[in-house]
């Protein structure tokens, strides 16, 4: 491995579909947490439902539009069910319920009783649900090399998926920007600051919180679809850790900013790949196995993130001034 390969791999992460999926999920979480102050600890639950809703209907032979609508409807119903009992309570309750509910979704999906629908713990393999998406591609078959990177045009981890994923991210960013700077966004930020004050001004707080929870969940569902398209649907690949990565990305980029989630996602995955690749080249196999390097990579990134939270708590793009009034 030489320096060029490292650079190729590291910068390749910048446009990877997974990076885009995490950016979308973090944008949804930003609507929950950054705008409305809802502590959603189960963004992976929304992603799982999106992924399953899409993959199952695809496997059953539905068309793409129906599959995407199913994914969104499932996420919306899930958000509604979570919100009804918890939104009137404090933020900590929502955190607990969402964390538990995401686990319920995952465990139900991987249970043997559901094998005929979800494929159990083995999940749904790509050929069952990606063909229609790949067939939609206007690109010719084969693979293309662009500067340093060579990917297949249409199949699996492809250029086509990259293009679609990043167009989705761009659309999501524009929507977020619009919402953040609208009177609706202002009400959500008001709720984040003080619910009772907003109530005393004649706004239906529960309605706004429900809208925010569902909207962020829809972003999560789309993220789930983008996340599974280059691989397969596997319940355990969308577990708690995904939720925590999403939180990390949001706080890294800066909550309540528009570009924060995108930047956070890019920085996290680029940094992680860089650390791992450099260690793989520089540390001989006799000292450390590749498994250990994988784990150490997370440790180093974890320490870097802790430093960031301590020395720049507002994230990369966040506004330090806003944090001054935490009380």
């Amino acid at each position, binding site marked *: 491995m030489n320096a060029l390969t490292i650079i190729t791999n590291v910068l390749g992460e910048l446009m990877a579909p997974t990076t885009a999926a995490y950016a979308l999920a973090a944008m949804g979480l930003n609507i929950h947490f950054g705008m409305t102050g809802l502590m959603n600890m189960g963004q992976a639950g929304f992603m799982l439902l999106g992924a399953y809703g899409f993959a199952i209907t695809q496997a059953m032979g539905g068309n793409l539009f129906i599959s995407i609508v199913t994914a969104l409807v499932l996420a919306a119903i899930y958000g509604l069910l979570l919100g009804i009992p918890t939104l009137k309570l404090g933020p900590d309750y929502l955190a607990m319920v969402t964390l538990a509910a995401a686990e319920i979704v995952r465990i139900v999906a991987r249970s043997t009783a559901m094998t005929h629908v979800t494929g159990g713990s083995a999940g749904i393999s790509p050929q069952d649900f990606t063909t229609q998406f790949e067939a939609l591609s206007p690109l010719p078959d084969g693979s293309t090399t662009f500067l340093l990177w060579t990917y297949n045009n249409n199949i699996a981890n492809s250029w086509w998926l990259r293009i679609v994923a990043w167009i989705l991210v761009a659309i999501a960013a524009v*929507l977020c920007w*619009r*919402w953040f700077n*609208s*009177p*609706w*966004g*202002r*009400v959500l*930020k*008001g709720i*984040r*600051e*003080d619910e*009772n*004050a*907003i*109530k*005393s*001004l*004649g*706004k*239906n*707080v529960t309605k706004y919180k429900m*809208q925010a929870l569902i*909207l962020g969940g829809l972003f999560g569902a789309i993220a789930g679809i983008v996340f599974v398209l280059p691989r397969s649907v596997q319940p355990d690949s969308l577990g708690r850790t995904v939720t925590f990565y999403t939180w990390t990305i949001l706080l890294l980029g800066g909550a309540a900013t528009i570009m924060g989630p995108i930047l956070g996602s890019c920085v996290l995955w680029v940094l992680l790949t860089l650390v791992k690749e450099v260690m793989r080249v520089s540390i001989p196999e006799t000292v450390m196995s590749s498994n250990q390097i994988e784990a150490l990579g997370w440790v180093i990134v974890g320490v870097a993130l802790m430093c960031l939270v301590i020395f720049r708590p507002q994230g990369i793009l966040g506004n330090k*001034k*806003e944090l*001054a*009034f935490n*009380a």
Partner: protein
Amino acid sequence: MRDSNTNQTTDPNAPTPINVGEERTQPVGAFFDLAKWATKAPEGEQLISTAYGDRVTQDLMYVENKAGVHKPDPILVADNVTRKFGGMTAVDVEHFEIERHGITALIGPNGAGKTTFFNLMTGFDTPNTGTWHFDGQDMAHVQPEKVAKGGMVRTFQLTKVMSRLTVLDNMLLGAPVQPGEGMLRALWPGAWKKHEKENREKAEALLERFLLFKKKDDYAGGLSGGQRKLLEMARALMSDPKLVMLDEPMAGVNPALKQSLLDHIISLREDGTTVLFVEHDINMVRHIADWVTVMAEGKIVAEGQPKTVMDDPAVVDAYLGAHANIDLADIDSIDNDDDGSEDVQ
């Protein structure tokens, strides 16, 4: 704008403003001049009218000074309101009325149930029993946001400003009409830009009046305690409420700002707004209130003109008790923890 105030257009008995300051060079009428409408003008300014104040004084002159008395033109009528916390009865109000266009003070020692009563009236707390009507509408068991939309807006004892929003954004949140607050319509600025502009003009005028205009782009969290009180009051006025309920508007405000807050409250009356406020500073109550209601241990123990009430033995009892040798005006300095036990906001 304030010119189309509903009270003034729908109330046939509304008095016509009397121009006192004829020699003024400035044109009269823009609503941000209304600070000049107070019965006692802020320093260096002149009054335009004292019409509402005069009428309320006239009307209340003939009302008997006793607890639970009926008033000539009540805006809020409450009956048999009780609220129990476990075995403790925090509020037990048999009958209570607020005179329209008047400034009513609600006083009483700490733990008397004033804040709880506020919470009940505005829907932030649910009573065990009771009914109340606001301007003819039944307001019992109505959610706080609907109470606010009905024209009854409150402020909080522990000031609630949105710290990480700018002062102007805080104000804009108080605007009653903004279609852009719908999730989908928010995406089409054409649907709300016009309202936003109108609301902004109104907010800026109010901020000017409350001496916060220079702070409009600062975060509200950076304001001082007194400025937050001002902001909260200004925000409550964004919706042109019929009744504002101010929970201790003077607590923690320095004396200089206190005077200007007082003038603002007085000017609200000349605006056609009814004011109910909780306060501990007896001197202040005497100075601006048209009517004083005294609560103690959840009950209304006395009502009347400020001067009469202060001499009522029931009030002296309720307020002084063990501290009978201490001046009334100093009462709030003894009790640092205001209504701590009954705060259930």
